[in-house]
């Protein structure tokens, strides 16, 4: 008996190993765009984590000799007006983009989830009030709200994350709330209530895990717009301050003045932003198709 079980176990492990790669391959075939997106996001994450090893130069070292030097063998993407290496600054800039992107998506997600859970589970006056406030917040464009918040909080990495996360909250709260509203009527919640579980336990042990799929879908979708908003804020001079190299600020520094003489200052940071956001969006679409088949198309 035991030997049979063992041999079955071994056989299963073998197919498990093979099927892991097989499944990844299959996933890539089913969602080719998603695979490309994930690869781009992986590259950005890699650049951010290993920036110190990958970047050929220090991103803040200036050099008069290399000022505005065109792309060449010394500096692959050229140098900026202070002679800093554009490629190194882009690689290090991935850190800021990701830190703000992921940070604000997570923060907005956590706040939104808590609000959504409370609204959906308790309902009543509290829910009504919060829903009205959410309506109001949604009437303001994401960028306008982030601008106002960034301006009143002042420029710093943490404040930029907060300024971008708050405008993301309403959407999360909405989605979670509507999920909770349908979940709370299901038998398993009723059962939990019948055995005398506390509200808090029901919400966190039984309802929250069931809202994870839509949460992940929304989070990946918001990641792109969070990165984009950070770039826009920095471009307008309200984002993460010096000395951190930020993609958006690299563009605003170079903007109209250098358009004529040094186009590489405009082209490469822009490609970095677009690629990162594009990758996040592609990945988000694929995750949505994968986790929520009803929404396909």
């Amino acid at each position: 008996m035991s030997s049979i079980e063992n041999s079955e176990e071994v056989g299963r492990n073998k197919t498990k190993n093979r099927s892991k790669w097989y499944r990844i391959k299959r996933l890539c075939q089913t969602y080719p765009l998603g695979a490309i997106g994930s690869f781009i996001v992986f590259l950005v994450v890699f650049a951010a984590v290993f920036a110190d090893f990958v970047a050929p130069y220090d991103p803040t070292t200036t050099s008069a000799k290399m000022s505005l030097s065109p792309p060449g063998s010394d500096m692959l993407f050229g140098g900026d007006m202070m002679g800093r290496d554009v490629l190194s600054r882009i690689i290090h800039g991935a850190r800021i983009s990701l830190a703000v992107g992921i940070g604000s998506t997570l923060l907005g997600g956590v706040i939104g989830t808590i609000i959504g859970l409370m609204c959906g589970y308790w309902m009543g006056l509290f829910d009504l009030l919060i829903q009205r406030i959410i309506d109001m917040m949604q009437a303001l464009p994401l960028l306008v709200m982030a601008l106002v918040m960034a301006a009143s909080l002042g420029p710093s990495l943490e404040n930029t994350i907060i300024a971008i996360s708050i405008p993301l909250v309403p959407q999360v709260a909405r989605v979670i709330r509507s999920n909770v509203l349908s979940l709370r009527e299901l038998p398993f919640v009723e059962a939990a209530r019948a055995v005398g579980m506390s509200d808090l336990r029901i919400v966190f042990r039984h309802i929250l895990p069931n809202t994870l799929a839509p949460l992940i879908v929304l989070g990946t979708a918001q990641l792109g717009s969070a990165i984009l908003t950070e770039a826009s804020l920095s471009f307008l001079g309200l984002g993460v301050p010096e000395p951190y190299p930020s993609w958006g600020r690299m563009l605003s520094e170079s903007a109209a003045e250098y358009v004529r003489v040094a186009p590489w200052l405009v082209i490469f940071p822009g490609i970095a932003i677009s690629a990162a956001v594009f990758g996040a969006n592609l990945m988000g679409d694929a995750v949505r198709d994968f986790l929520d088949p009803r929404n396909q198309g």
Partner: protein
Amino acid sequence: MLYSYLIQRFLLMFLTLLGMSIIIFVLLRLVPGNIVDIMFDSAGFVDPDEKKTIEKELGLDLPIYEQYYHWIVGLISFDLGFSYVSEMPAVDEIGPRIPITAKLAALSLFFSILFGLPLGVISAVKQNTALDYALRVVSLSGLSLPSFWLALLILMACVSYTGAIPIYTETPETLWDELLLYLLPSAAVGFRASALIMRLTRSSMLEVMRQDYIRTAMSKGASDNAINYKHALRNAVLPVTTIVGIEAAFLIGGLIITETVFNIPGVAHFLVEAILMRDYPIVQSLVMFIAIIVVVINFLTDLAYAALDPRIKYSD
């Protein structure tokens, strides 16, 4: 029925705006420190008496609820106070900029529909073909390109082809000049906004094409074109109109950046300047102005939708 629905929606809109004014007011005062602090910081000297006088002149010494009250009363009577920076009445600062931004926004909306609607339909009709994938990538890239980068690229292209930078330097004289000047910025904003319309048109078309009456039309032997454009498109376009409100918010976001890059003296550009200067009265009133526009557009879209779709009843 209709009237009670109208009144109900109108009251709700009013309450929303009132709430938003509070949110905006509070958001701008999250952090201690006002324009006077900044003026004194940058001047590098502090004379407490002088500071007090200026604060009093600007009404910053009043309790916060009184400041709010004055602002709201002013808003209703179109008296928006004075700009801290230029010392001109805020109304005179904002007023002349509205038509510029309105024209830009209208042109951008035109472009976004021009690109978005047909491409969305094509993408849905040719679902899962190479064309569909290509169009989806284009629309997604529209959402992914930062609008300031797009604007900068357009500037660069103009520089290399014509040698001139098409940014706003003086007020255009003829309508034609004006159109030329607005064409590129609004195309940049419109391209980005079209992605939203395209994605919605596509999914809405696909949704409609799955329905029974389409199958009926097919079994009756109607041609593909007749089915796609006569039966499906008409019903698919309806939900698309509902996002005009979201689209308006999206356009404003794009305009903020694009007006800044092209140096167009519109409302959105002015908002950025005012924020950078911490010019409270202007920022407050401008953000409120944006909120009013978005909320009113949403209100009108709701009404239009209810009027267009006979399935929607006026009661909740």
